[in-house]
């Protein structure tokens, strides 16, 4: 059965096969006929949300069309409603008019009752009036619940059937409508034809296009040559041609050459003197950038207080640190003009102009190159490097140690007032000589034909025959001393009374003092002051003693063969710290605290003075060759002097951490050692060349440790073995240590 309805200009075509459908259509045809012109639909929906969305749907559908045309055309070619019975509903040209619920401006006014609640017409069988004043009748059958239920059960379109409240008609939503609703509910764009992701066309791309990207077409003129320009060009061309013809052009060129005369090689002189100056151009020194005090609003600490201001004012302009008074202003614009500006600029220019500038050559030196190319210690073997023996026995600090010239024994003296003689190889103490006072210095007679030791103990200097080693030599020495005694006796008898002198020799004989004699003491030389050092002359006849407090009598030279002493200096040149004889010349080295004076004993004159740059010389050692000396100082320094070269140190070493106590040379090997209060002995290689042009080679070799620091004193004395590269050191810890290679 086919039913055709015409609603306005549009048609609703339905294909129904069921009777129920026909019934429905008949029921729905009644109001449709009743209010044919009244095309206002009252939409009724179960869900309010869908109701709203339907409204939005319509708005979106043809939002512009609504304003222009009251009709909304839904162009659906064919809407297919699939159902189990295979029925089809074709909806074509469905027209939906404006709804009542919309704002009054946009109201569909087919129903002319206005914007009133539809319930007011509940009791009537019409729901309003159309433009012609006819009643719009209610659609029947929408109040029967049984009917509704049956519809629900039987009508497959029930779920998509909507009732228009304003007209009471039931509308079956098309597939398109449902799609629209669903899109809105999903939050998509309602228009199914709208593509949210269109293909991007890169209009302004990197690719070169042959056509301009402009909207309008180019004018024809833009393709054609300009007539005005053509005229101008032809004008110029004719003028040039005329000029050429008349020869004006050439003449003009010649004039230019004369005027500017750029016809020479501008860079010809490059590299000559004039340009050298440019090459060595010295930029003017830059002024310092302004500091905080020059600010218009300086930090308060830069501002002068009264005292500073007074000082600034009092000082001369040249002496001032800054040539203005820092001031504070509220604003930068309050800062007045600087009256000294021009003058300062002028001064600056004068400075730059008048002051010669000099290029400062900065030497690029690799620090590695500055280190002297010294041989490795390994190559300078042998030198003492191992602690081999410890000589234990002293009960207090051992102040001094010396080796017998043969190298079999060593002698040591210390604060325990004993003088001990040890066998080198075994460390056996062979003899102990007990003296009355602490011993400051001991030295073995360097001559092998004499068996003598001199010992400085407080104010006395003892000459001791150790009676060890070669027995015949010992006996001969005793004999020699015996002769001296007799000689002295004769002299005193000849002179009569003894003259009281600064130095007093007391010979010990077996008869006079047997105990002392048995101990080996042969002679006592009494001084007035404490003797700190005794040292032999190489020939074993003279020896010197030092008593620093003795002023001009600090240094005394004793002669053994005459049992006499003499004071070589009439004036004190400072506190004498130590003295030394030259190994092969009649020279005498006297070290005061600041420098070393070298005297010629034969001529009795000062020949040289060595400046150590130190205030506290502790010891001096003369190289066996005689041309070099080392000086140890309490201020950590160890200076090597080449006596021929200069009176300044050839080299100064500061490898000790505390004051240097003693320095010593080896007699055979090119070695020297220094001992210090840091309880270390440092052995260095010191080779002296026969070639006068070649300087001595000094290589520190080894730090020898072992001694303990006692009462802030470390190692107090050292000496080398005469034959082997061995070094003995004695320390405040009461031990003597032997370091061997």
């Amino acid at each position: 059965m086919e039913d055709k309805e015409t609603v306005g200009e549009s048609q609703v075509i339905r294909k129904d096969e069921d009777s129920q459908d026909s019934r429905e259509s008949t029921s729905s045809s009644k109001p449709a006929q009743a209010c044919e012109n009244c095309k206002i639909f009252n939409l009724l929906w179960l869900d309010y949300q869908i109701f709203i969305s339907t409204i939005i749907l319509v708005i979106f559908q043809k939002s512009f069309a609504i304003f222009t045309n009251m009709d909304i055309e839904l162009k659906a070619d064919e809407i297919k409603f699939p159902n189990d019975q295979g029925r089809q509903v074709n909806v074509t040209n469905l027209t939906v008019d404006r709804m009542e619920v919309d704002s009054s401006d946009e109201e569909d006014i087919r129903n002319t009752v206005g914007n009133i609640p539809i319930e007011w017409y509940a009791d009537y069988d019409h729901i309003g009036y159309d433009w012609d004043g006819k009643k719009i009748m209610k659609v029947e059958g929408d109040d029967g619940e049984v009917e509704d239920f049956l519809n629900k059960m039987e009508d497959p379109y029930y779920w998509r059937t909507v009732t228009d409240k304003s007209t009471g008609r039931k509308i079956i939503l098309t597939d398109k409508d449902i799609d629209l609703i669903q899109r809105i509910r999903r939050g998509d764009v309602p228009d199914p034809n709208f593509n949210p992701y269109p293909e991007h066309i890169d209009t302004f791309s990197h690719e070169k296009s042959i056509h301009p990207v402009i909207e309008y077409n180019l004018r024809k003129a833009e393709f054609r040559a300009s007539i005005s320009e053509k005229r101008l060009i032809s004008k110029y061309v004719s003028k040039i041609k005329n000029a050429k013809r008349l020869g004006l052009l050439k003449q003009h060129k010649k004039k230019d050459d004369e005027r500017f005369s750029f016809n020479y090689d501008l860079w010809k002189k490059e590299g000559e003197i004039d340009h050298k100056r440019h090459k060595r151009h010295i930029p003017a020194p830059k002024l310092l950038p302004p500091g905080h005090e020059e600010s218009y609003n300086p930090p308060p600490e830069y501002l002068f207080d009264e005292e500073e201001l007074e000082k600034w004012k009092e000082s001369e302009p040249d002496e001032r640190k800054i040539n203005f008074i820092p001031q504070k202003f509220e604003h930068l614009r309050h800062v007045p003009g600087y009256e000294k500006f021009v003058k300062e600029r002028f001064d600056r220019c004068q400075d730059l102009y008048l002051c010669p500038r000099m290029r400062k050559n900065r030497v690029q030196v690799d620090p590695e190159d500055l280190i002297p190319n010294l041989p490795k210690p390994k190559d300078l073997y042998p030198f003492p490097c191992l602690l081999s023996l410890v000589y234990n026995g002293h009960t207090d600090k051992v102040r001094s140690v010396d080796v017998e010239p043969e190298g079999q024994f060593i002698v040591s003296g210390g604060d325990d007032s004993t003088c001990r003689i040890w066998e080198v190889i075994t460390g056996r103490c062979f003899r102990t000589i007990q003296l009355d006072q602490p011993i400051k210095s001991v030295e073995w007679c360097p001559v092998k034909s004499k068996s003598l030791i001199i010992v400085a103990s407080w104010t006395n200097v003892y000459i001791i025959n150790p009676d060890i080693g070669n027995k015949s030599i010992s006996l001969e020495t005793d004999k020699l001393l015996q002769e001296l005694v007799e000689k002295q006796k004769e002299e005193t008898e000849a002179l009569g009374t003894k003259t009281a002198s600064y130095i007093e020799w007391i010979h010990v004989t077996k008869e006079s003092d047997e105990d002392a004699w048995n101990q080996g003491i042969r002679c006592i030389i009494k001084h007035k002051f404490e003797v700190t050092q005794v040292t032999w002359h190489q020939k074993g006849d003279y020896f010197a003693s030092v008593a620093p407090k003795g002023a001009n009598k600090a240094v005394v030279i004793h002669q053994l063969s005459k049992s006499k002493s003499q004071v070589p200096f009439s004036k004190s040149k400072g506190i004498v710290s130590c003295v030394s004889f030259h190994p092969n010349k009649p020279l005498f080295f006297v070290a005061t605290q600041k420098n070393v004076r070298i005297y010629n004993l034969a001529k009795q004159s000062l020949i040289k003075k060595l400046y150590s740059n130190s205030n506290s010389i502790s010891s001096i050692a003369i190289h066996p060759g005689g041309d070099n000396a080392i000086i140890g100082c309490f201020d950590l320094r160890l200076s090597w002097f080449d006596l021929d070269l200069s009176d300044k140190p050839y080299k100064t070493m500061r490898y000790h951490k505390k004051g240097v106590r003693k320095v010593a040379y080896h007699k055979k090997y090119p070695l020297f050692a220094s001992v210090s209060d840091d309880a270390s002995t440092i052995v260095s290689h010191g080779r002296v060349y026969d070639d006068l042009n070649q300087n001595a080679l000094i290589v520190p070799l080894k730090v020898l440790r072992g001694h303990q620091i006692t009462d802030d004193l470390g190692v107090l004395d050292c000496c080398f073995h005469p034959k082997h590269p061995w070094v003995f050191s004695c320390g405040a810890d009461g031990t003597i240590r032997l370091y061997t290679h």
Partner: protein
Amino acid sequence: MVNFSARFRTKDTNISIPDTVYSLNGNLGPKELSNLIKTVYKGTSPDTDSLSDGIRLSFIIDDRLLRSNLVAHFQEETEDGNEAGPIDEEKVLEIEYFINQKAPIPINSCSTDDWISCIDTNEAAIINGCYDGTVNIWKIGKFDQLISIPAHASAVKDVKWIPRQQMVGFDNLSENDYFFVTTSNDETVCVWKINLNEEKVDQIYLCKGHTRSVDCVDIQDDIFATGSYDALLKIWSLYDKEKPGDENEPVENSTKKFKTSDKEETDSSCKVKTPIMTLADHSEAISDLCFIRDSTDISKQGNLPTIIVTCSMDNTIKLWDVELGKVDSTLSGSKAFLSISYSPMKKCLISGSCDRHIRLWDPRSSEGSIVKSVFTSHQGWITSVNWSPTNENLFISGSYDAIVKQWDIRSNRGSLYDLIGHEDKVLSTDWSNPKYIVSGSADKHLKIYQNEC
């Protein structure tokens, strides 16, 4: 792990095992190998008891003592520069084994009054010299002090028994008469006679000639040689052959109780000798000397030149031909020597010097390195070295580190045994009597170890 194939040999027929080639794992050490030998030995000869469990065996491969496992042994050998053993498994190793040298047993410690500077032993007694000038004699067996003689005015530096076979030159010999030589810091050398039963000591000779302390002495045949700090080597005759008639008298005259002996008295009573020869070539003190006895047979010895080896503080060892009175050859070292010993069996010298190395010298080889090997494990100077009188491979050394060590020359990787006990520098050791190793030290003690061969 490398495998070795080896064959075991031994010179001791009592413990020999059948000659088969064994495949040995490279990580086997001496312990495992001796277990192997013992097992094999028990399997072959179950009746004998030569190899009990307590016995340990030593193994020698290519004349080197096996101390670690086989692989490590060959590695060490290559490190030492010796010709490396076979790493290829094809070659069959010849491994010699013998019963291990037993550890010396400490049997006594004798106290003296002062530092012991020198020791010598013979079959009957031990003699030692002290730094206070006394000489102590200890009887072997009980090790009680037999006699103490104030022999010298100063420290006794060396003491030597005169060998029994060389005492024939002396008259009036009784069975318990022994002779010894002492040298001293007082520049004299004395020859003494002692009767061990009667505890009677006579000074026979007083030898004067040196001008510094006489540090060493050795005796051979009818002569004895002394070296001194004055760098001279002096040869003295043991008997006065020139005046046989005079010889008896002084000996008899000097017979006296040692307790009443006085230095002056001995000087007057005993015979003063002068050296028959003075040899000077050393530049520094002679610290030790010994005769090269290439043969123990005296009759053969007569044909051979008498050679003395001296070692000195001037870093040299010199071999002197006594007949010619010249230096035969010189061996140079780098350190001052302190002691030397010669082995007639091995014909090699060992030296101790002012460092911690013991060096083995071959005086016969003139080419290449004359130091054959270096033994290092001491921590101080080596003051004394002595060959074993019976075993050609063993020697002892005493050092300032207070340890006496027994060494096998076939292993320089370490000593065989460390004899610890001294509390101060060991100054002297002696192994003249094969049964006893004696050491003296600065701790005033004499330590006696029994050595079982």
